[in-house]
Each structure stands twice: as structure tokens, then as C-alpha cells.
């Protein structure tokens, strides 16, 4: 097969092309789509800056469970819910500005930790099916969330603010105005480049989280997690409490996702009370996967590459599709098709490359074996002759 020969090639350019097939595919696509969409460079740049600053934190929260071998944590939805509950409270109490944002984080941390603990316990019972279970857990908790927010807030949990309470006296409205904390983090430290505000504070938070992850990997706990991720049997044999380690990784991930959602929503400025969290998992995971991560391995660069590429396609393709086909409604379908299609293709490319690498290794191993065998045979034959 021709394709297999390609991966064997030692030519550096071709090698580079193959190793970076997905980003290259994306760049080609985007290069076509940008002029078609007719967006100005300024608009695109601004859009990318906001999207990286608001989404990266959430995507980063996925990394730690991957280290522990638990795959993509669909359970970050739970963290997002915790963050939203924190935001509901500060909106009710009318705490505004940076203090409000920090207070929301403080309130939601124990909730997130509790939910994370719960999720971790369940995922420990569903080893090998963590992703499917996490997904279902998200659906399940969505029901609980509705029950709490729509039926017990205002009745059991006191809520006094008429702007978020439904007129019937209980339940939170479908949309909450986060005017009080809207973009406070973004605007805390921002300076303009060519008239585009760069939210420095946001990037500092993201940077700190990256440092935390790098540091965490080197701690004893981080090392244990890696061992657990590679093989639970080995970890158990070397005296690591596997269950506890996995649990901790999920708790950390949930808490981080909770902060991520708060950062995300302070930028968005309004909260869709019952749906904002629903797709958090799917989108964050899609971005991470496009960035080159796999279920077993994900790095910090994957996060940023992924967020940029994923969102670039999301921004550009609806307009490009519209201009290409000429009908607005088709543009929207085109966007969904291209966005998800490209995810599927890139995942396929990554998986395929990995498979090829494996095959190459095997072939090399076989070749070495054969050589060894030949030498052995040669020597024995030679031995006989002598």
C-alpha cells in the first residue's frame, strides 16, 4: 500500500506533513474559508482572543483525568453546574465586580468538590466505561440540577431577587443577567493592541493553571496518577491506592471545570440557566481532540492548538458556507457538517497515524528479528561447516 510507504519515508518534509496532518488540514480549510466569509482580520483576531481566553480554562480541566487513565472526563458538566449555582447565588445577593466573581468561586468550590467526589466514586465502579458513564452522569445530574434550581430555589433555598426568580414565586428564570460580573475578569487588566482589548488577567489565570498542571505532574500524586493511568495492576502492586488516586483526579478536574465555567460565563455575560452546561463536555472534548490529544494522552499545547482551530472553524464556516451555497439556512447546516466532519476526519487521521506507527514498529521489530534469526542461522550453519 502506498500510504504505508509514506509513513516509512525519512524525507523530513513529508514526515512533517504527516505528523501535522490535522493542523495543516485545518489551516488549508480556514485559508479558503476566511476570504469566502468576508470577515475582517480585526474581527477574526478579536474573536480568537476572546475564545481562547474564555474556553482554554475549561479545556485544561480535562487534562488531569487523562493522566490517570480515565479518558475524557464528560463529568466536567457537573463542575459547570456547580459554577452556575455559585453565579446564581451572587446574582441573588447582588454581589458585583471582582468580589462577586471570587465569591461565586468560593461558594461553588465545595459544591464542585462534592459533585466531583460523587462522580469519582461512580466512575471507580465503572472502570473501562468511564466516558460513557460520565456522559450518562451528566444527563442524570441535569435532572437533579433542574429539580434544585427550578423547583427548590425560592421554596427551600431562599432566593429574594425578583429579577432572577420566576413570578410564580419559585424557580429561577431561564436566562440570568450577569451584568454585575460581566467581563470583570476580562477588563481587570487589559490593554489594547490595534484597538483590540487583550484580557491579560484571563491569560494570567490560564497561565497559572498551566503551571499548576506542569507542577502537579511532578508531584508524588502526579507520578502516582501516571502509574495508575498506565496500569492499575502495577500501581496496586507498588502500593498506590488506585481508587483514591482516580477519585482525586476527578475531584480536581471538576473543581477546575467549575472555575472554567465561571470564567466562560463572565465573558458571555448572560447565563442560560438550564442549558449553558449541557454541551460543555462535548465542545471542550472536541477541541482537545482536534488539538491532537487522544483518550490516553493530552498535553497543554494540544489544548491551545485545539481551541484555536476548533473555534476558527466555528466562526468562519457558517458565513463561508452561506457564501458558497448562497442560502443562509444552508450555511448553518454547512457549518455543522464541516465542523463535525472535520473533527471526525482529524480524529481518524490521528488514530490512523498511530496505527501506522504501531505497524512500523512491528515491522521494524520483525525485520530485526529476521536479521537476528539470519545471523543466528548463519552462525550455526557456519559453525557446522567449520
Amino acid at each position, binding site marked *: 500500500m502506498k500510504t504505508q510507504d509514506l509513513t516509512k519515508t525519512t524525507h523530513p518534509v513529508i514526515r512533517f506533513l504527516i505528523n501535522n496532518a490535522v493542523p495543516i488540514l485545518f489551516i488549508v480549510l480556514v485559508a479558503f474559508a476566511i476570504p469566502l466569509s468576508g470577515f475582517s482580520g480585526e474581527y477574526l483576531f478579536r474573536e480568537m482572543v476572546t475564545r481562547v481566553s474564555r474556553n482554554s480554562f475549561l479545556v485544561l480541566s480535562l487534562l488531569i483525568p487523562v493522566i490517570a487513565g480515565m479518558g475524557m472526563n464528560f463529568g466536567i458538566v457537573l463542575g459547570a453546574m456547580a459554577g452556575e449555582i455559585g453565579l446564581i447565588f451572587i446574582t441573588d445577593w447582588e454581589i458585583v465586580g471582582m468580589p462577586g466573581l471570587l465569591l461565586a468561586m468560593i461558594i461553588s468550590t465545595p459544591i464542585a468538590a462534592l459533585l466531583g467526589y460523587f462522580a469519582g466514586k461512580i466512575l471507580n465502579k465503572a472502570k473501562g466505561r468511564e466516558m460513557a*458513564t460520565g456522559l*450518562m452522569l451528566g444527563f442524570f445530574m441535569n435532572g437533579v440540577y433542574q429539580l434544585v434550581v427550578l423547583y427548590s430555589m425560592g421554596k427551600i433555598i431562599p432566593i429574594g431577587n425578583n429579577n432572577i426568580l420566576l413570578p410564580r414565586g419559585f424557580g429561577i428564570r431561564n436566562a440570568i443577567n450577569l451584568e454585575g460580573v460581566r467581563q470583570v475578569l476580562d477588563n481587570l487588566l487589559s490593554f489594547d493592541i490595534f484597538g483590540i482589548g487583550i484580557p491579560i488577567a484571563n491569560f494570567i489565570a490560564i497561565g497559572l493553571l498551566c503551571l499548576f498542571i506542569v507542577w502537579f505532574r511532578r508531584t508524588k500524586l502526579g507520578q502516582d496518577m501516571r502509574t495508575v493511568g498506565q496500569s492499575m495492576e502495577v500501581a496496586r502492586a507498588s502500593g498506590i491506592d488506585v481508587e483514591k488516586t482516580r477519585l482525586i483526579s476527578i475531584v480536581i478536574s471538576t473543581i477546575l471545570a467549575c472555575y472554567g465555567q465561571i470564567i466562560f460565563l463572565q465573558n458571555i455575560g448572560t447565563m442560560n440557566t438550564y442549558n449553558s452546561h449541557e454541551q460543555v463536555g462535548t465542545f471542550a472534548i472536541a477541541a482537545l481532540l482536534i488539538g491532537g490529544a487522544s483518550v490516553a494522552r493530552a498535553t497543554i499545547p494540544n489544548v491551545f492548538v485545539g481551541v484555536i482551530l476548533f473555534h476558527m472553524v466555528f466562526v468562519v464556516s457558517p458565513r463561508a458556507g452561506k457564501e458558497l451555497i448562497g442560502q443562509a439556512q444552508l450555511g448553518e447546516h454547512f457549518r455543522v457538517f464541516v465542523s463535525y466532519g472535520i473533527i*471526525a476526519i482529524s480524529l*481518524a487521521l490521528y488514530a490512523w497515524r498511530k496505527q501506522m506507527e504501531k505497524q512500523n514498529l512491528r515491522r521494524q521489530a520483525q525485520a530485526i528479528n529476521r536479521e537476528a534469526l539470519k545471523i543466528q542461522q548463519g552462525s550455526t550453519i557456519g559453525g557446522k561447516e567449520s
Partner: protein
Amino acid sequence: MVERIQKIVNNVGLPRIIIGLFLLFLLASAPFVGVRIDTSLNDIILRLAMNGILVLSLVPMVKSGCGLNFGLQLGVISGLLGAVISLELNTTGFGGFFLAIGLAIIFATVFGFLYGILLNRVKGEEMVVATYVGFSSVAFMCIWWLILPFKSQDMIWAYGGAGLRTTISVENYWYDALNNFLSFKIGSHITIPTGGLLFFALLCFLVWVFFRTKIGSAMIAVGSNPEFARSCGVNVNRMRLVSVILSTIIAAIGIIMYQQSFGFIQLYMAPLYMAFPAVAALLLGGASVNKVSLKNVIIGVFLFQGILTMTPSIINNLIKSDMSEAIRIIISNGLIVYALTRSSGVRQS
């Protein structure tokens, strides 16, 4: 005695027994809250016939080690294509129904073939890739539903005068064509959709037979140990490809079956939501990502659909508020999570 019970419990799996008991409890409590048991039973049986084949379609891929088919939408789309073409050709009754199936099989074979080639390239990550293939194929077809030159006045948009509607009634074509075959009534409120159930049974039987043929057992070998299968001279990739095509074809038949019973063809975004209930039902039935049997299919559909139809009506009548929906979500998804955390117990037995 205790041992025998123990054995039965092990055999069926504790989660399923608990969920089954819960379903029984719902049925038993129905008359007390003013829900008729007979109509409820009728609904569950009808839903078994409607959804069974879609769940069955997951089986070949699990058997061959391709995992749960989150790309079920591809099969559904093939089925939809078959269905709308049969309507466009104005065929009714059994003829229309089987024409739709025939056409759907052709589309499913083509789509399944391409899909299978893709999945063969991504061994180990089939489920994730399949999910996104499903999403994007649905969006892709959204474009085509609007563009394809269908003319039938039953199907095109009212105001726009072109393109297919989101919901198309099959009432004048082959609504209940199969369900009414040999159907009979028990009491005043239960109608047994004999044709539908027989058709489901027939397909189950065919699948059962298939996995006893040479190809079928080779497929199982590929699923349980690809290295071993390869060393026995089985072409692993070809076996996987066949299983994917088979899954897609059964899914295509499944959706047509669904529609003839449902009365509507649902296009556009509707197929997006088709994979999830099927997978959930299979998991609830005790299957896992790499192990499945026909028993799982039947038990799964029965339990999942039973809970789906019973919980909202019972809770509705109990508390008379829209809150029932939140509770339904909690109960049905909670049970699935529960089943997922427990299914390892079944595997050991």
C-alpha cells in the same frame, strides 16, 4: 433454592432485576393514580416492536469489536432516504413499506461500506469517531433534504414550495402497514402489533443464525481476539467492514419500522437523537462495549422503553405538574448510570 435464586440473579444481573422490579412497581401503582394498565402495556409492547430493530442494529458491530455504534445515524439516514423515495413514488401498503426497505438497504450498503473503511482506520477509537461521523452526516443530509428535487405535494414545504418538511405523515402510504398484519385485540385497549413483533423476531432470528455461520463466527473471533483471528487466516478488516455494513443495514430497516408505527417520517435533526436511546437501551439490557447478546437487546428495549413511557405518566398523575419531566430524567438516567456501574458483575458470571 437460595442457590438457584443466586444463579438466576447472576444470570440476569442485579441491576436488571432491580429495574424490572421498579417497572413492575410502576405498573402496579398505575391504577391507584388513575393510569390504565392496559393502555400502558399496549404502549410498551408497541414500543418494543418500534425500537427493537434499532437496538438490534448495534449488535454486529459490538460482536466484531467495533464498539457501540454511535454513528447509528448513518443507517437512519439511509432508511429515511428509502422512505422518502418510496413516498415520492407514491407506493402504499406493504409494497411501499418493502420498497422503502429495499431502497434503504441499497443506501445503507453504500454508506456502511464507506463508514466501515473509515472505522477500520481508527481501531480503538471507533466510538469517539463514530459520534462525530453521526453528527456531521446528519448536518450533511440537512443540506440535501432541502436541495433534493422531491416533488410530492405531501412532503414539500408549505410556504416555500420546495424542499422536504421536517415531519412527513405516512398516513396515506404505509402507516401501520406491518403492525396491522395479523394484529388482534386483547380487551378494549390492547392491540398486539403482531406483524411488527414478528418482523422484529425474524430479524433477531436472522442475526442469531448469522452468528452461527462461518462468517459470523469469524466475526466473533475478530471481536474477541483480533491477533488470534489474524493468525487463523481471517481477514480482520474485511470482517469488521461486513459487520459495519450489517449494522447500518439493520439500522436502516429499524428506522423504517419505527416510522410505519410512528406515523411520521422525521428528517433533519431528528436522526441525531436516534443513537442515544438505542445505546442506552442496550447498556441497560446488560451489554457492555465488547460483549452483547440478543437477550440484552430484548431485555434492554423492554426496560428502557417501559420506564420511558411509564415514569412520566405515573409521576404526572401523582404530582400534576411539569416537574415530572425532571424526575423522569433523574430516574431513567440514574438507572442507566447504575446499570453501567454494575455490569461488570454480569461479565464475571
